């Protein structure tokens, strides 16, 4: 250093300053606020909160045993949907999550001692659910949404354990993940978890009403809405500065559910949000499909109405964030197939005439059931047509009582036909036609959990 010229010294200082600023910016980008930071810091520990308990189960279940409470909570946390393959045994795992760098498989969380979690102590279970640490000490990937479940109370988590342990043990060995280096190094998750898992229980906000707190607990600790609806940053952590403003997860678009009137759900009535969560459909707002359809079937539709109302209250409080999707929602299309958008798309129109028009009508307003109305839905107004293509490929399999399903067309229509019909549908019923190619459709097929 003694021989360093002043100019060089200045240069080093500048470089160091830039580096510090860059690190700071990077840190700011990566280490964002927590999921509840938007509501301010008037929080207290649960034990010090004197309003109605926002955790646990609805009042009529409060006196039920742990198994019954755990069933409600397991459904609210929607454990099943990731830990069960289509047609497979409940909670026996094996669902594949294809990622760009390999495939992750969900695990067996039945009480089978050999292949499930039958040997887990209460503390082992809490470590996994709240901290992302397996019984053998290995780290879980954040595909397991423990950064949300960490807000769950110990009592609630252990009730879920009691419920899982009350179900039949299923012997199904876990598959090995096929991640590439360096992603296959689970120990790396120690740092990720250290950085991004708050490892803290839910703290009620005294500036908010009891219903809001209940909604917050359900949304953040149980239903883990943000894991699909909040965009992620470069470190794969949730970017809560854009909380709930929409993202693509597992090949499906999770829409903007902030209070933004144009691109979010700010223009929806409370009843519409309630109906969408409880039944998967709100008149004129479209029908829940894909992962959200599963969430409705397996989770929201099983919740007590008061809990859904609490969720609505909570969602109403999310700050509006405008997203890049177009705000325009197109009106119904003309009755005649020869009028309206995308008329020149011969292949798309052909597929629509063959497979779609019978239910969805040429106007997009179904003459059979409001559930099948596609005009006015986000999906057809999304110019990426991500969900339109996915719905054509895999249909909508609904289990809720009275719900209509849509059959899957992915095995018989080709990628170019599906691209064409998605482009036709967005062009005819949406605000702008998508420009999917056969390759895009092939990529979408590859991204879905299966």
């Amino acid at each position, binding site marked *: 250093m003694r021989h360093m010229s002043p100019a060089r010294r200045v240069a080093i200082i500048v470089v160091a300053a830039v580096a510090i600023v860059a690190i700071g910016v990077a840190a700011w980008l990566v280490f964002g606020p927590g999921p509840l930071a938007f509501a301010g810091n008037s929080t207290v520990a649960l034990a010090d909160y004197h309003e109605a308990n926002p955790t646990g189960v609805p009042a009529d279940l409060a006196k039920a045993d742990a198994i019954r409470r755990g069933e409600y909570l397991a459904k609210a946390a929607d454990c099943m949907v990731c830990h069960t393959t289509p047609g497979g045994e409940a909670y026996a795992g094996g669902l594949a999550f294809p990622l760009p760098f390999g495939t992750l498989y969900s695990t067996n969380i039945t009480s089978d001692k050999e292949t499930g979690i039958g040997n887990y102590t209460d503390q082992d279970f809490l470590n996994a659910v709240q901290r992302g640490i397996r019984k053998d000490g290995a780290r879980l990937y954040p595909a397991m949404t423990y950064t949300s479940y960490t807000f769950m109370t110990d009592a609630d988590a252990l009730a879920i354990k009691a419920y899982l342990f009350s179900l039949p043990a299923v012997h199904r060995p876990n598959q090995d993940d096929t991640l590439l280096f360096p992603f296959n190094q689970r120990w790396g998750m120690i740092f990720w978890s250290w950085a991004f898992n708050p490892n803290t229980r839910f703290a009620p906000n005294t500036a908010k009403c009891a219903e809001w707190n209940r909604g917050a607990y359900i949304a953040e600790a149980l239903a883990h809405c943000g894991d699909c609806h909040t965009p992620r940053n470069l470190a794969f952590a949730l970017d809560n500065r854009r909380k709930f403003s929409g993202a693509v997860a597992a090949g499906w678009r999770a829409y903007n559910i902030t209070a933004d009137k144009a691109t979010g759900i700010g223009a929806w009535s409370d009843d519409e949000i309630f109906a969408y969560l409880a039944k998967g459909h709100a008149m004129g707002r479209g029908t829940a499909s894909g992962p959200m359809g599963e969430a409705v079937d397996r989770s929201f539709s099983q919740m007590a109405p008061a809990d859904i109302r609490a969720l609505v209250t909570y969602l109403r409080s999310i700050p509006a964030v405008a997203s890049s999707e177009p705000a325009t929602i197109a009106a119904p299309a003309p009755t005649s197939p020869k009028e309206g958008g995308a008329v020149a798309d011969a*292949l798309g129109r*052909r597929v629509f*005439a*063959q*497979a779609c028009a019978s239910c969805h009508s040429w106007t997009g307003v179904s003459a059979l059931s409001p559930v099948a109305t596609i005009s006015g839905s986000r999906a057809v107004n999304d110019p990426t047509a991500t969900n339109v293509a996915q719905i054509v490929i895999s*249909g909508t399999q609904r289990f809720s009582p009275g719900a209509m399903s849509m*059959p*899957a*067309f992915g*095995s*018989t*229509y*080709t*990628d*170019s*036909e599906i691209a064409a019909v998605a482009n036709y549908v967005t062009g005819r019923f949406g605000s702008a036609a998508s420009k999917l*190619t*056969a*390759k895009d459709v*092939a990529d979408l097929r590859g991204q879905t959990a299966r």
Partner: protein
Amino acid sequence: MSSKHAIFSRRSVLQSGLAGGLVLAFPWPLRAAPVNEPEQPPDHPDGQFAPNAFIRIDNSGKTTLVMPQAEMGQGVYTAIAMILAEELDADFAQVMIEHGPPSDKLYGNPLFGVQVTGNSNSIRAFWDKLRNAGAAARTMLIAAAAAQWQVDAASCTAANGKVTHASSNRSLTYGEVADAAAKLPVPEKPKLKDPRDFTLIGKPLKRSDTPNKSDGKTIYGIDAMVPDMKFATLVQCPVLGGKVKHADDSAAKNLPGVRQVVVLDDLVAVVGDHMWAAWQGLNALKVTWDEGQNAKINSADIWNELRAASQKDGVVAKSEGDVNKGLAQGESFDAAYELPFLAHATMEPMNCTVRLSPDGCEIWTGSQVQSRAQQYAAKAAGLPIDKVKVYNHYIGGGFGRRLEADMVASAVRIAKEVSAPIKVVWTREEDMQHDVYRPAYRDTISASLSNGKIVGWKYKVTGSSVLARWFPVAFKNGLDGDAVDSAVDMPYDIPNKRVEYVRAETPAVTTGFWRGVGPNNNVFAIESFMDELARKANMDPVAFRLGMLDGTPRLKAALKLVAEKSGWGSPLPPRVGRGVSVQPSFGSFIATVVEAEVDDMGEVHLRRVTCAVDTGIAVNPDTIMAQLQGGLIFGLTAALWGEVTIEKGRVQQSNFNNYRMLRIDETPPIDVHVIKSGEHPGGIGETGATAGPPALRNAIYAATGVPLRRLPIDRSAIASKKA
């Protein structure tokens, strides 16, 4: 008599004028409480002139023709009635048509000995028998009239349901002489008409069954209604061959309209007030299955087994010349072709209505095998055959699926547990996932070329034998005659050839006849390879074939005609091709040209189909055309998309969203040219299904240069741009 008339009339169709203005025999009430009267089989037609099993004429002159074969759209009721009426000289506009009851003895197909509508056999098998039946009746009616007039029968003539003695200007209707004719002996060898005198046969005639099909009056099996009946639907194990382990019906039973849940060893049925109630009940069942060994079977395993089996030597079905010497001459080539499992997907799903009483069983269904349906029902009901009545119906698509009677047996087994008559209707999903499937086949061919001609030909079919299961007596010495049909009799002049068959039963999958049967497979492989050989020989595919068809002149003429009508050889745009195929199958000689475009993504667009057919005497030429148009679409549908796949023992296809059908907007113009011929009538119902796929495959070969060797068409193999 009168009550019997009323009963017959329910299912009978009054023929009406030939020109459009069609009259209904009986008005159709909109029934608040629907009841279809059971139809009595015409077992003992007292007081009628009934010289044989096919013709009955009562005193009023009402002429009833009993149909030995099933009408499933192929127009056979009209064609059979035309043949009978032609020789009978009946007034065709007034004849009644009636579904035949089960009886191998009376209505057995002369080629099989049992009652079966299949293999495009109705007209070609029954031709002589029906003509004889009609002529015998006419001879007796004339004799009775002549006796009454005391004139020589030879001086009398018959026409339009009347006998006339021209020289005395007297005539009697058939009704007036029916009683007298009934007392006369039945002539064994009546004099048949000279075909030149045919007034019905050979001219397009309106079908007798279509008016009631145009306004919803026709009763199919699925439409049968019996007083106090309940409605049932069923679920079988998703894994083929699996059994019921446990059925939790608590949720199902509590649904409104659900009456009963029937659990049998291999299926669970829900009985309700209507199909919807039963179906909702089915959805609410929680059944655990004993899936059995088949739960391990995947399509890939099945194909591996089939490919391994095709390496074995087969049973020799045909050998001419010295095939090894032939293959050693000139240049030799090999290829293997593969065809997938296919479902029938008849538009009318499987169904059967059953009424059981302590000493009897009645069956309402649409069957291609009425007597077998009766036998299955008797066995399931534990009753003697003569206690089972089968009322056959119009069939909403057979295609071979209704050559089986499994749906009858299961319906009777369910009915045994239910105190009311029941109609069992399968859901489309159940229909598609528990079909008997067209076998998957692998065909291996070696051929040698010398001077533009084939001099050696070795052809081997490997696949499941439908015949061995369905008609064991016909499966002899390891050889399935259907599986090598159109291969042993391939039309080309080849001095040295051998055809072999390897029976390879595929695990899990029960196979069955499917429209076009064995020839579908063989004509596809042979005609595909013919195009590849033509290219090796640097010859035009039509010219190459014409050079080897001297021994089959009727086919050669058809090929020349189709080449002319299709504009063969005229220029086409890029990626558009014409493909030809010829076939000597089912006693008909057919040549077909498909013109198709393959776009950059590998999507195939049909542009035009031309077909020339010599089917011998064309009883109803318009029906011949319709059958070919429809059969071609049936075959092209399969070529474009048809494949049933198995994963973990489960059929993956379930409904029309994943088992795709050609639709009107993908259907090209189809021109069928019927060649006039005096030869014995050939079969026609299956032929189009056989003709379409190889011609399309060859069109794609011409358009892209890609020699596809497997169906359905692999778009990725023929795309010019890769996705």
